[in-house]
């Protein structure tokens, strides 16, 4: 086996089960991108189609009143809206056409950086091939086949459509007294205990009881309510000074 000089990573990250893709930045940080699938992308495209249609009808009615000059401007406008609508929005509006903006999607380069003129022009010109033979068949098939849900234009341009993740609201601070764990905790266990404490607000009581009950025996308590309190204390112990 060939020997490489690269040092192995200190902590290997778990391979995610979902569609997240990890991209390493020059700072050595792994960013996770969540590529958007076929259905939501089609919806965004449909919205863009409606916006474009409305735009064209409105402007053409306006220009029609101007006669010959209006017709010339109308042809230029048709050209602009047909070929440049997506490009202009993607480059000037942080990778978001109106449809994508509405559905919280954006186009980025496949290394997570912002999209530039060339890449945007490539992906939108090659849309013509994705639309072949009829109604985006080629693009849709490729999108379903590709692990990052890219159509052919994205592939050539090196771009990606991702969800814009919004940060969640700050979970409420725990009020319980901090407590050190009675036995050493693995990293995954620590994350699980902290995660349980943070997500308590979004779980139903019954589900929280059910989850806490699993740990009642190892923690040495009798009821689910006591287990929940104990887990909160442990989480507080992990978070703050003991």
């Amino acid at each position, binding site marked *: 086996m060939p020997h490489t000089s690269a040092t192995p990573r200190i902590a290997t990250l778990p391979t995610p089960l979902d569609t997240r893709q990890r991209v390493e930045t020059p700072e*050595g940080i792994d960013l996770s991108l969540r590529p958007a699938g076929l259905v939501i992308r089609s919806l965004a495209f449909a919205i863009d189609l409606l916006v474009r249609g409305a735009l064209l009808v409105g402007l053409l009615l306006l220009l029609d009143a101007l006669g010959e000059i209006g017709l*010339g*401007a109308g042809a230029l406008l048709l*050209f602009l809206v047909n070929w440049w609508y997506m490009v202009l929005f993607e480059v000037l509006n942080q990778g978001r056409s109106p449809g994508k903006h509405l559905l919280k999607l954006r186009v*980025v380069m496949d290394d*997570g950086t912002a999209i530039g003129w060339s890449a945007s022009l490539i992906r939108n010109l090659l849309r013509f091939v994705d639309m072949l033979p009829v109604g985006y068949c080629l693009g849709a098939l490729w999108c379903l086949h590709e692990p990052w849900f890219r159509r052919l234009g994205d592939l050539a341009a090196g771009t990606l459509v991702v969800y814009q*993740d919004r940060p969640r609201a700050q979970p409420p601070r725990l009020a319980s007294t901090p407590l050190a764990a009675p036995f050493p905790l693995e990293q995954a266990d620590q994350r699980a205990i902290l*995660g349980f404490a943070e997500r308590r607000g979004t779980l139903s009581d019954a589900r929280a009881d059910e989850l806490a009950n699993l740990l009642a025996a190892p923690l040495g308590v009798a009821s689910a309510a006591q287990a929940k309190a104990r887990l909160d204390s442990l989480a507080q112990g992990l978070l703050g000074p003991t």
Partner: protein
Amino acid sequence: MKQQPFEARHQALWQAFSLRLSALERGKARSAHAEGFSQDYRRLCQHLALARSRNYSSHLIDQLEHLVRRGHQQLYRRRSQLGPSIMAFLAAGFPRQVRAQWPLVVAASLLFFMSLLLTALWVYLYPEQVYSILDPAQVAAMQSMYDPQGSRLGRGVERLASEDWRMFGYYVMNNIGIAFQTFASGLLLGLGSAFYLVYNGVTIGAVAGHLSGIGSGPTFWSFVIGHGAFELTAIALAGAAGLGLGLALVAPGRLSRGEALRRAAKASVQLVYGVVVLLLLAAFVEAYWSAKSSLAPWLKFGVGIGLWALVLSYLTLAGRGRHAPE
């Protein structure tokens, strides 16, 4: 250090950074490269790495990762000054790119111009053959357009001055649309581009041969020679760009097909930029110069030959000097 003291210590930096990102994203702030943005960003990266290795809670890690992702997008931008880079591209970058891809350009030109010339010759020698290429209505329309008695020429008899602008818009939409199709269909292993090159060559050739045969030759040739310099070159170059995409898929060399396609697309899109400029020029010349039938044919032929010489010498000679703008 546990999580809460860590958060308390760095919270101020994170909030300030988040505000700054919002300003940048709305286009309010000037540039990401001012006043310690990159330092703050790298400290944030360090905090994220620490938070991960110390197993802080998912919420904190998600929050930091969100900030890092936004910062990453603002810091690593391919933003340059548009004006000077367009000038440099037109002065040197575009002709250099054309010469760098000369095998593709030669192949596309051969496909296009050979099919044009051969069809023109064929239709000129066997006039009835024009009906196997164009349908009779099209032929009749062409004949009336280039009737030597007409006062103004090109796609519509009897054009008024105010129509020039309308035709300009029409030419831009139609011709650049065709060029874009010719380029994009190259992704189908190059076959699409080859098809459009030959198809356009045959159509134009049939019209040229037919009109020369029935005696409208001088009117037709004096009309097309001016803007043809830009328009025909542009179509050939768009085809070359498309063939480049196809070649990357058929013969990727030592790269994977995806990587080869990506590099080819990057080079091809440079040609497409140039093609757009050439076609805008062509539309302008076609609408405001070629259509004027009041000018003497010798003047139009003279200017037309001058434009051909200009375009060809621009593509072969511009940007060769050592001090040419980058």
